[in-house]
């Protein structure tokens, strides 16, 4: 709805009705409106996936920024090349090598966050009505970026080992060779499910993509935020045709808006044309600052601290869930990243429950927000453990449990009378 608010007063959009039709599919969520309407001060938010930027030392950033201006002022404040500065692309090439992918600096296009990469790829590949394949649920921001180009989104479900490749195969068979413009996947600590794609699924996904001749877009914002378990090689390391999206937002700072796309040269050429139309080139100043920041070794220590802090918060959230959450709830055990996914009995509509949660001083994102149809996943929610402090996390989970408990009492009454709906009666009462 086209409304801007200040206090209780509503101000309508006077240009409503004159916007392009493609914007109709790009919707602000009812959730966001609700938060705006709630305006409560001691709200615990599990909604946004914001990095804990306070842990990045100001003096390190300041040194890099000062150097960018003092030593490279003329370049920092000038237009740059569309593909991004060569020194930064060399750093990116090094970062990619560390995760097992051989990437030349020339294979890289620097973008304004990986988000711009998503927009540019959609712009380059999609006509209205084109089919794309994503995981279901998938990153809300990707759905938003894609939706402006009006594709038909086919979702492939996941389990604890990532995308179900046998379902993918079924979909691909239905769609036929080149039946989709691309497959979009987040293999590591998937947003919002929190699961990581197992190595054999990665290989199978690539085989299928080859067989049906469909490009794969690998989005990997959280790959380096692993708390435990072994590193898994990215899809790009297994297949050089994979388009890889990386970002400095989680390993440095989202405020610099720096991400990158690694793509085969033909796709890269199209991306550059689209990039030029979008913003000519990225910010040279931001790129120089990142070059300075990543030239030493301090960033590794900062990243280790960040990962340790996120791991601790995940542990606090898992412990709080185990302590407070009802037995009927199941949740993922992310080995890294920002999010975990909670599933409740099928009759619970967590979108409908959100106003009540907001009244109780806690927010989350209802699962349905991560599906293009806006309906699937209603009994699920995404909880971000990255931003709230450990104390807030415990309190927030406690409040949330209170809201759920009330609804679940009813569910238990049905269970006690052996009157549960069939699919819920089949549910194992276990924690994932």
């Amino acid at each position, binding site marked *: *709805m*086209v*409304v801007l*608010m200040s*206090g*209780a*007063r*509503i*101000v*309508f959009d006077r240009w409503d009705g004159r916007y392009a039709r493609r914007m109709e599919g790009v919707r602000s969520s*009812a959730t966001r*409106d*609700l938060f705006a*309407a*709630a*305006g409560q001060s001691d709200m615990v938010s599990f909604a946004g996936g914001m990095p804990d930027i306070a842990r990045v030392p100001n003096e390190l950033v300041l040194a890099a920024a000062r150097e960018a201006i003092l030593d490279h002022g003329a370049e920092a404040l000038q237009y740059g090349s569309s593909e991004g500065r060569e020194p930064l692309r060399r750093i990116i090439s090094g970062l990619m090598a560390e995760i097992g992918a051989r990437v030349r600096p020339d294979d890289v296009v620097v973008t304004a966050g990986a988000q711009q990469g998503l927009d540019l790829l959609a712009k380059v590949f999609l006509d209205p009505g084109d089919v794309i394949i994503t995981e279901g649920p998938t990153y809300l921001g990707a759905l938003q970026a894609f939706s402006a180009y009006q594709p038909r989104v086919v979702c492939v479900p996941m389990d604890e080992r990532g995308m179900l490749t046998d379902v993918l195969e079924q979909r691909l068979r239905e769609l036929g060779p080149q039946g989709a413009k691309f497959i979009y996947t987040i293999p590591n600590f998937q947003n919002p499910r929190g699961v990581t794609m197992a190595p054999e699924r990665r290989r199978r996904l690539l085989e299928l993509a080859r067989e049906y001749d469909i490009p794969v877009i690998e989005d990997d914002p959280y790959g380096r935020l692993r708390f435990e378990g072994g590193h898994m090689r990215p899809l790009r390391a297994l297949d050089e045709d994979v388009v890889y999206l990386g970002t400095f937002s989680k390993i440095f700072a989202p405020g610099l808006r720096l991400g990158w796309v690694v793509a085969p040269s033909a796709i890269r050429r199209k991306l550059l044309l689209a990039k030029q139309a979008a913003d000519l080139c990225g910010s040279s100043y931001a790129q120089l600052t990142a070059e300075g920041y990543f030239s030493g070794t301090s960033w590794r220590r900062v990243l280790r601290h960040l990962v340790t802090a996120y791991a601790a918060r995940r542990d606090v959230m898992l412990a709080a869930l185990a302590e407070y959450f009802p037995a009927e709830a199941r949740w993922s055990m992310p080995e890294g990243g920002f999010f975990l996914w909670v599933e409740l*009995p*099928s*009759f*619970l*509509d967590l979108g*409908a*429950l959100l*106003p009540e949660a*907001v*009244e109780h001083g806690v927010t989350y994102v209802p699962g349905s927000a991560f599906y293009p149809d806006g309906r699937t996943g209603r009994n699920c929610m995404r909880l971000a453990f990255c931003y709230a402090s450990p104390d807030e996390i415990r309190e927030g989970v406690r409040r949330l449990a209170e809201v759920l408990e009330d*609804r679940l*009492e*009813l*569910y238990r*009454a*049905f269970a*006690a*009378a052996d*009157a*549960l*709906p*069939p699919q*819920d009666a089949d549910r194992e009462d276990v924690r994932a």
Partner: protein
Amino acid sequence: MKEKIAVLMGGLSLEREISLQSGKRVTEALTNLGYRVVPLDLTPDLVSTLRSERPDAVYIALHGKYGEDGTVQELLEFLGIPYTGPGVLASTLAWDKGISKRLMRASGIPTPPWVTLTADAFKHMGAASALDLLADAVGGLPVAVKPAQQGSALGLTRVADDDALSEALLTAFSCGQTVLIERWIEGASIAVSVLDLGDGVTALPPVEMQPKSGLFDFSAMYTPGETDYYVPARLDAAVTAQVGRLAERVHTLLGCRHVSRIDMVVSPDGMPYVLECNTSPGMTETSLLPMAAQAAGIGFQELVELLACAPLHELE
């Protein structure tokens, strides 16, 4: 100078989006008519804003919880601000479908047989062990299962076999604490809007809804093209007159004023059954009250002005 009117919309209910659409259209209409309009949302700043703005009247374009259940009406009476639509008591009675159906049955107004069950009856008294009796208690399947206190058909399920009953109940309970299990009457879905603006209670022409999916649920109601509308409804003259009189009786019975919309089903043999009374009917592009008014020769702007002026006239 024309009066200052605050239009109340949005809120925290499940029908927030719909209410914002209603409120926006009402705001535009009143602005075009030259009123000073203050569009307001239900936020913690509402009362302070109302006190500083001092509107002459409030137009209630809220739907669902708080806006339609008497909460806002009670608040506005306390603040001494006249408002549109039914008062506290009528809002409270109409909001609870179980209560209003009891009143209707006692006055001989036909309404489908039903059972009302609260969540507490399930949680604390083992009502789930009597699910097998439920369908027979209202005359057999199919039945409608819906929250007793929610607008816009949120949480509504048509249940055709016993296996689906518990799921439907749980779905309805996710929208509210009381659930209505009602005999499903096959037939035409009809909405009769009633105007009552100081010169008597008058039913507008009935509107017939034919959802393409077969069920007039939330999505059929608000997605353009998902429902075909017939204004006036495809009823013969005698039945048309009868549903009009029924609607007027329900409006009066519940003590409504200014406006209400009575939803009914007319069975193939021409027998009307009243389902519920809405005290803050939608004013969106696909809403039924503006459609009915149009059929009676009252344009949208005129309708809004009639309603907005009703509380002002009562002051005089």
